């Protein structure tokens, strides 16, 4: 189903800086990735890792100032989104790229009916007449599993529960048949049973519509169930990238390895004590000149303080295509070290 050979989105060397009163914050540092047709890319990281900011930079959703996208290219179907005008960008957003935000409570306008909000992109971007837009809105609501869609068009957001609102948000994002759907923690604010409903819906929609999806989350459990490929971010950088099964079976970066161990298991043997990553994530006040994870890394050595490790291939495929990691240690060396440390 996903076709990696046909890239929908190709991002290279993206850099985003926030200018604040306290100085600059380098939120995104040289982020590169690509997204194949119909592929679901999971982006994992803690708060402040730059995962949301990098995706919002792609389509110019960050207010400037304070945000400043300093460099890189974002190719969407052959056009560089960082070079086109604000008007063109506006037509890309909504029509070519759909966005679903974390909080379904605040991302719908409380004073307009759902029908109004779903029809808006259809009328604006697709220049649909009102009647056709209404028919399409009903179709969309049915697509995302809202019963009695026809009568729900005149309802207001407050009449819907959280899970239902997130369905509506997805319907709006899908309205113009986007090539790429960016979902920023779309299930984080929802309860587990409702989360399961939404994940099931997204899987179904992928089968039906075949769009590419970028799924931003801090929840490795969600990623394991839904992603084709995963990109792990830390300190505004991509520290590891791999197909989902490969990443969970064979994590390379010390951060990824530690992260996978801090989560308690829901089945299987119960750990006596949780593994801890000591310390705090860094605040990037300057462009990185050393490994951003070094302060919390068990395997730090002198090179880590001097050189920011570039991404290198783990499995022979070119960086970005297969499994790559940004760490000075090679896998065998790291394995030997961790055996010594845990012996």
């Amino acid at each position, binding site marked *: 189903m996903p076709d990696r050979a046909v890239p929908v989105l190709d991002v290279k060397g993206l850099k985003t800086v926030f200018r604040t009163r306290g100085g600059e914050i380098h939120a995104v540092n040289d982020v590169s990735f690509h997204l194949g047709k119909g592929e679901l890319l999971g982006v994992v990281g803690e708060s402040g890792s730059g995962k949301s900011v990098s995706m919002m930079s792609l389509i110019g959703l960050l207010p400037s100032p304070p945000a400043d996208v300093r460099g890189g290219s974002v190719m969407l179907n052959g056009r560089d989104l960082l070079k086109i005008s604000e008007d063109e960008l506006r037509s890309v957003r909504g029509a070519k790229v759909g966005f679903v935000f974390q909080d379904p409570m605040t991302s719908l306008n409380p004073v307009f009916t759902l029908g109004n909000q779903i029809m808006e992109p259809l009328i604006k971007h697709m220049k649909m007449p009102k009647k056709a837009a209404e028919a399409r809105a009903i179709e969309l609501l049915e697509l995302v599993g809202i019963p009695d869609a026809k009568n729900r068009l005149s309802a207001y957001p407050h009449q819907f529960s959280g899970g239902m609102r997130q369905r509506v948000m997805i319907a709006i994002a899908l309205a113009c048949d986007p090539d790429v759907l960016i979902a920023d923690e779309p299930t984080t604010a929802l309860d587990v049973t409702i989360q399961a409903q939404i994940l099931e819906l997204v899987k179904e929609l992928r089968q039906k519509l075949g769009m590419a999806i970028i799924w931003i989350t801090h929840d490795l459990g969600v990623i394991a169930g839904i992603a084709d490929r995963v990109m792990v971010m830390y300190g505004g950088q991509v520290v590891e990238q791999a197909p989902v*099964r490969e990443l*969970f079976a064979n994590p390379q970066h010390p951060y990824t390895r530690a*992260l996978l161990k801090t989560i*308690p298991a829901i089945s299987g043997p119960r750990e006596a004590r949780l593994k801890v990553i000591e310390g705090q994530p860094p605040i990037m006040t300057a462009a990185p000149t050393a490994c951003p994870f070094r302060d919390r890394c068990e395997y730090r050595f002198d090179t880590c303080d001097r050189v920011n490790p570039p991404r290198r291939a783990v499995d022979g495929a070119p960086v970005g295509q297969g499994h790559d990691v940004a760490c000075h240690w090679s896998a065998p060396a790291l394995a030997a070290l961790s055996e010594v440390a845990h012996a």
Partner: protein
Amino acid sequence: MRDASPKPLVQVTDLKMHFPIYSGIFRRHSGDVKAVDGVSFDIQAGETLGLVGESGCGKSTVGRALLRLYEITAGKVVIDGEDVASLPPEALRKKRPTMQMVFQDPQASLNPRMTLARIISEPLDEHTDWNDARKLERVYELMDAVGLNRRFANRFPHEFSGGQRQRIGIARALALNPKFIVCDEPIAALDVSIQAQVVNLLEDLQERFGLTYLFISHDLSMVRHIADRVAVMYLGKIAELSPRDALYSLPLHPYAEALLSAVNEPDPVRAATRKRIILKGDVPSPANPPLGCNFSTRCPRVFDRCRVEDPALRQVEPGRFVACHLYDQQTAAGPTGAPEVNERNQQGELQ
């Protein structure tokens, strides 16, 4: 088994917490939000009871009602031999040092204008007549216990990260040597790598000071890690109360089963093969709960009796309590699976 064990530290009997709804121009009392509707459980000294459920199920309300942060509608809450629900104000004040709370949002539960030392010593100001030097000594002791550097004593909450703020909240809760602490979603607002730090700290403190926890959370994997027994709540009632391992390996109540199946496992291989139970619809409003069993509107195994009769929480195996007609003697003793037979007949007629 139960008789042999010592008397539980916390005994909750038929706890009810209703919030009145007033409507119309005369603000007449027109109904109640039954946030907690008849909840009973015990917590042994030194034990951690996990309380799980989805938002709106009443789990936080139970935690707050236990410490009498609300005036309880009905029921008994015996903590260390005294019924907290009916204590007069002065006696309640004397009781407060034994029972404390750690809140979800360390940002909102710490006064931004107070220094760390003042925040932690506030309970001491209220409940002791110690002089300043002794109080400061205690503050330092507590900061050491929760892993905060003594140098930070004069800093303000905004200078700390989320995980450190939660440590401040824990230090404050420990100030008066409590026996019982209600932890209300203490890790929900923290990053994954920080959650483990706080949970390990809570476990260390429990061991060191012999604390008893009610650990309220929606994170079922973390509850499996920290709790000895787990109560699953749904719409103001306990659906199942079981020892941890029993519950996670074989949940009995259909809601507990669905809830556990919905947890996302960080393992793509297992995620691909695992069978999930996807519940239909949303949780009904606690102001207008369904007739019969609260879960009957979403239950995949519902039958006629569920829609008319509310199942009581019964012991179905030693130590395991379930509120479900499927496990009732009456249903089980009758023609086994009678409801399913009925359904099949109906389908047969339709065909």
